[in-house]
């Protein structure tokens, strides 16, 4: 390994290090003085930015991991293999960050292992905890070939390859359970959430939206790393992903509106209020606009068009999770929550850590440039570029 590149000072590296240092300092302060002194959380508002962003958004943006893994291994669409490793890495780092975020947010973090031996299967949080533990392990194993290859550990590599398919299947099951369970967490508080966000289909909304966001994240991550590492971006692959994003956004929008209509909650959209403004921002800018943008072939096959539309999907997704966790709880005027600087610093620091860890791993391991294990026939059988990667049109 050559490490001299690490010390080269660049603009983004300086920003990253500053954010990480601030986050680290804020975390130290949180451990030294407690949650009350360092956060704006209070008895009537016990969950804030760390749960809303670091956990709910962090897990959701890692959803590319299970969708792309399923595409390549379950649906056998080999064409997508070149984006598999970076996506799995994004997902793995995402989950590691979620665990870091949890360790800061939990009041008694030293007791986190209790979830392993003290069971309460009636708790959604119990499901969440087990999914985090198991899926992080699965992601580590899914990514392990990259590390094993690097150090030429052939026997371990062979072993991992043998269990790849069961591992991916397990990963898909755990992810879908986990993504939906984050929504299910809110099922138990019907009386405390704004009707624009509380719904009994919230687990489904969470899982549908995370697929769109996970794929959008794959697109954005591809563009950013192509810039950082001077690679060619896999444009045809990414525009195919964008096509799936269009379908998923349409499905999400349909379910969301149907749900509002069936609960007679559509009226709140048109009542001028702080909540309806945030709802409209979330749905119009984060779902409807990227849907129409990506529907156009011109946008989909244009580098900038694709990048900015995917970014909108991600922002819309973040808005949905933040609105669910924070805006929907602010029903009473005395409950406005604004995160403290320590909460912001930890969140930004963790994000910076994620970006830098991604760049580091990409630099020293073979994350990019994995060829599709194609055979002439296989590619032909998969249909040409531009077909749905779910293989609907093939054969």
């Amino acid at each position, binding site marked *: 390994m050559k490490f001299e590149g690490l010390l080269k000072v660049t603009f983004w590296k300086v920003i990253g290090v500053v954010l990480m240092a601030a986050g680290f300092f804020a975390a130290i302060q949180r451990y030294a003085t407690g*949650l009350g002194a360092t956060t704006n959380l209070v008895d009537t508002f016990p*969950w804030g930015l760390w749960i809303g962003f670091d956990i709910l958004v962090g897990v959701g943006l890692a959803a590319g991991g299970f969708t792309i893994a399923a595409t390549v291994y379950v*649906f056998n669409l*080999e064409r997508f293999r070149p984006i598999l490793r970076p996506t799995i890495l994004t997902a793995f780092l995402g989950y590691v960050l979620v665990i870091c975020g949890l360790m800061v947010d939990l009041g008694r973090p030293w007791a986190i292992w209790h979830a392993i031996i003290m*069971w309460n299967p*009636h708790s959604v949080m119990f499901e969440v905890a087990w999914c985090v533990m198991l899926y992080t392990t699965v992601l580590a194993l899914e990514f392990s070939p990259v590390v094993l290859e690097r150090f030429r550990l052939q026997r371990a590599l062979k072993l991992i390859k043998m269990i790849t398919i069961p591992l991916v299947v397990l990963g898909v*099951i755990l992810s879908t359970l986990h993504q939906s369970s984050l929504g299910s967490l809110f099922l138990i508080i019907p009386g*405390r959430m704004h009707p624009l966000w509380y719904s009994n289909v919230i687990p489904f909304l969470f899982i549908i939206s995370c697929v769109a966001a996970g794929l959008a994240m794959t697109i954005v991550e591809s563009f950013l790393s192509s810039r950082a590492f001077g690679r060619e971006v896999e444009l045809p692959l990414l525009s195919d992903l964008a096509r799936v994003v269009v379908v998923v956004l349409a499905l999400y929008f349909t379910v969301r509106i149907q749900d509002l209509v069936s609960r007679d909650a559509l009226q709140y959209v048109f009542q001028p209020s702080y909540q309806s403004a945030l709802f409209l921002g979330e749905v119009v800018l984060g779902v409807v606009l990227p849907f129409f943008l990506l529907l156009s072939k011109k946008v989909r096959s244009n580098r900038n068009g694709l990048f900015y539309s995917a970014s909108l999907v991600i922002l819309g997704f973040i808005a949905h999770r933040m609105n669910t966790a924070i805006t929907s709880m602010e029903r009473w005027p005395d409950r406005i929550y604004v995160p403290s600087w320590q909460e912001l610093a930890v969140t930004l620091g963790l994000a910076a850590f994620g970006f830098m860890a991604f760049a580091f791993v990409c630099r020293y391991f073979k994350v990019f440039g994995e060829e599709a294990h194609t055979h002439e026939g296989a590619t032909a*059988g998969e249909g040409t570029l531009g077909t749905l990667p779910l293989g609907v049109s093939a054969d």
Partner: protein
Amino acid sequence: MVKTKALLIDITKCVGCRECTRACAKANDLPEEEAKELSATHYTVVQGYNDDSVFVRRLCMHCNQPTCVSACLVGAFTKTETGAVLYDESKCIGCRYCMQACPFEVPRYEWGSLTPRIQKCRMCHERVVAGGQTACADACMFGATVFGDRDALVTEARKRIDEAPGQYVDYIYGLREAGGTSVMFLSGIPFEQLGFPMNVPKEPIPELSWRVLSQIPKYTVAAGVMLFGIHWITARRNEVARFEAEAARARHDTDSTER
């Protein structure tokens, strides 16, 4: 089998003397200062309404099927057979899901502590198990808070409403809220005017998440079968495509040699 105990709080009888809050503080070794809201050091408070002419006690409702018990991932909450809902700090990991989940917003947190605990009314569990009653019921000189078997108190509450219909709102708060609670209220003015949440579901709330959680085993098996199935079919399809491509090439090769 011990009968489930309960507290009946008659708002029409409360004069706001706050003897109950002082007795509570003493019984639980808490600071004896007055407060307006529940906190980690105030398990019960008395709030004044309508220019301090009506007084309402706040405390844990001790639900029959508590949301906190079902929400806590490590099972730090238990519903005892006397009716009290108790918290065990040795299990707690500090996720605060109980605080989010409670329909009455009761659990409070020791935000200032480095080893924070959830704090709330314990329905004087040790005193009740020893055959006594809660400190607050003991202290109340006006019969505004009475302690007893839940069944008997429901009958008593019904009787009071029936005997003086003009004096009471025809509603026992806590009879059906969240599937029924061990703390019940009677009032002379509508409960919604006294800060009581009226949109609390009338059935046990844990049911809301159990409906989804109970499907997990079925989902896991079905999804597993489906995913392996899709893999099997698509792998075979690729294999066939590969075979056909090879056959086509072989044909092409023979064709060219013949020519």
